[in-house]
């Protein structure tokens, strides 16, 4: 399949597709980051994660409409507001869900899967009732359109760079929060042993609630970024949930570095293959490769040595 291209062309193609895949990569990283916190740290299989992402996407859509209609002067800056709102909305819903549903199920991880699947069905139908079954798109401010011409053959889309920057920032904040703050220490203590953490005076209920909310909030931001690569419909989130779980498992569930590395490799493989093959074949090959590697190395790419 590479035969008809020269080496220079191939380099440019890889670079182009690489940069074109930036947004997909960012969406994957943000989704997977949220899931790595929820699944990797808390052990909850959140099948509704895609729906939290879509909530963020719908918030962005609402913001875009609101700013266009009422505050056209501030329209160029609306995306920042949208991202913040997406985080708050998805996070708040996440905390509500944790309080109402998840906290009863920490001892039965497989059952969280069924319960959150039920939740995802309810959310999908709720979106359909509120926003309609048709897919919606958002208007980007003009400064985010267009691209930077790096060389003759390579263009870098500006919105890709912007989302990338946001992703890096959020990743750093999350890493700092989990590994360098008092809260992060509490999170890790609770995840290792909930009873003992409670015994030394950590309010485990509060930590669980905040952590779940944080994971869902990040998914909301992923939804904001998602609006740039696809239109938002009630069931758009479901398409991403399998990929996201694979990324988290592939990277090694407890490792943030692994999550990023696997999100990068999966999104880039897919986006590069898409240039040469049809979209569905690219996806099949990527997923097959991931499942194949996981069968050989079930603990994922990066992981602590633990005897199970």
């Amino acid at each position, binding site marked *: 399949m590479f035969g008809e291209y020269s080496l220079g062309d191939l380099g440019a193609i890889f670079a182009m597709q690489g940069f074109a895949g930036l947004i997909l990569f960012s969406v994957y990283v943000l989704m997977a980051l949220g899931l790595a916190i929820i*699944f990797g740290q808390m*052990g909850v*299989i959140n*099948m509704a994660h895609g729906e939290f992402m879509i909530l963020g996407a719908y918030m962005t859509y609402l913001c875009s409409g609101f700013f266009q209609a009422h505050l056209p002067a501030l329209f160029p800056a609306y995306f920042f507001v949208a991202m913040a709102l997406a985080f708050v909305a998805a996070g708040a819903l996440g905390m509500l869900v944790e309080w109402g*549903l998840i906290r*009863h*199920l920490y001892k*039965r*991880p*497989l*059952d*969280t*899967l*069924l*319960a959150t*699947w*039920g*939740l*995802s*069905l*309810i959310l*999908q*139908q*709720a979106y*359909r*009732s509120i926003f309609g079954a048709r897919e919606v798109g958002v208007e980007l401010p003009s400064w985010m359109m267009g691209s930077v011409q790096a060389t003759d053959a390579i263009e870098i889309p500006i919105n890709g760079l912007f989302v990338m920057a946001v992703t890096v920032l959020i990743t750093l904040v999350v890493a700092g929060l989990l590994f360098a703050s008092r809260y992060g220490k509490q999170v890790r203590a609770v995840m290792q042993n909930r009873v003992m953490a409670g015994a030394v005076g950590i309010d485990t209920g509060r930590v669980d609630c905040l952590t779940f909310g944080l994971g869902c909030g990040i998914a909301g931001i992923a939804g904001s970024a998602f609006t740039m690569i696809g239109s938002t419909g009630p069931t758009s989130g*479901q398409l991403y949930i*399998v990929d996201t*779980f*694979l990324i988290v*498992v592939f990277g090694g569930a407890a490792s943030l570095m692994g999550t990023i590395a696997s999100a990068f490799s999966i999104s880039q493989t897919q986006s590069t293959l898409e240039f040469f093959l*049809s979209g*569905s*074949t690219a*996806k*099949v090959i990527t*997923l*097959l490769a*991931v*499942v194949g590697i*996981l*069968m050989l190395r*079930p603990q994922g790419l990066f992981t602590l040595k633990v005897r*199970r």
Partner: protein
Amino acid sequence: MKPKALNDNPFMKPVEWASLALLCVLIFGLLPLALDGFRLNLVGKYLTYAFVALGLVICWGTCGILSLGQGVFFGLGGYCMAMYLKLEASSVENTKIQSTPGIPDFMDWNQITALPWFWKPFHSLPLTLIAVVLVPTLFAFIVGAAMFKRRVGGTYFAIITQAIAAILTILIVGQQGYTGGINGITDLRTLHGWDIRTDTAKTILYFVNGGLLVACVLVAQFVKRSKLGRILVAMRDKEDRVRFSGYGVASFKIFAFCLAAAFAAIGGAMFTLQVGFMSPSFVGIVPSIEMVIYAAVGGRLSLFGAIYGTLLVNWAKTTFSESFPELWLFGLGALFIAVVLAFPDGLAGIWRQHVEPRLTRRAKAAPAALPQGAPAE
């Protein structure tokens, strides 16, 4: 409770014989008498899902392996059957107008001029019947061996099976020329010269389906009651302890997974025969998880519960989505949550905890019989 010797344990307890008899009366007597041809065919379709639910009772309830990819095996079984039926329907006379007569119409539409090699065995009915069970079971064996030998289990296994379901769906949809794409394999007519579209044929197929289901119940019951079944339960509850006692845990898990796959495949084949087509919409993640909820609603520990759960959920689905399509997803979602939060053992659990003690108390009329603990399942 006093430990019992294994051979004290009868194949089925009187209550279970009674439930089996009740199930037979329902499937072979009441439903065919009470329902018209269309509704009976619908119930037959639901009962094919019950095969999957039965498999999940063994695999998930008894052995603790949650597979979110049962649709894969259901679909593989169904596709094997559909390929045979399609080849029979695309005889040279029937497909004269195609540019290549004698191959299925969707291949002709996709500019494929010769029958692909993996379609060739499906010219023969015996080979097809073998393939219906063997292909999915073999696939389950490969997946299971790869995973369980490396001690992958629990949530990881669930996620990987889910990914496999997604991959297979994308593959089937993408390879339109070989698989019929998103529409699936349609326009199936005869089984070895016997028209499956007539009302009589549908009724006969319904009874064949019911018979196979009862047979599968008996097989599953045999597995559950045997020593093997006890090892499966022991593995679910304390895997390490079983491993340290010298059992090869992986082999038992592979067996349970393969058995579930074989059941699902039989269900899939019967689905194709009764409904008359097979499509990727029965393979993917959504149907696979829905099949899990059938078993969960009925009770993941109870074979009979799984069948009633399947019938109940599907009946509710048909009724609600006919009259309130908007509300159905809310209802299904709430059902998932309610089953998990309030009734983890499903219908069978409610029966065992609330109805059965009351019945036995009344039957014995004994002074304040304590509610008995759940039977050793």
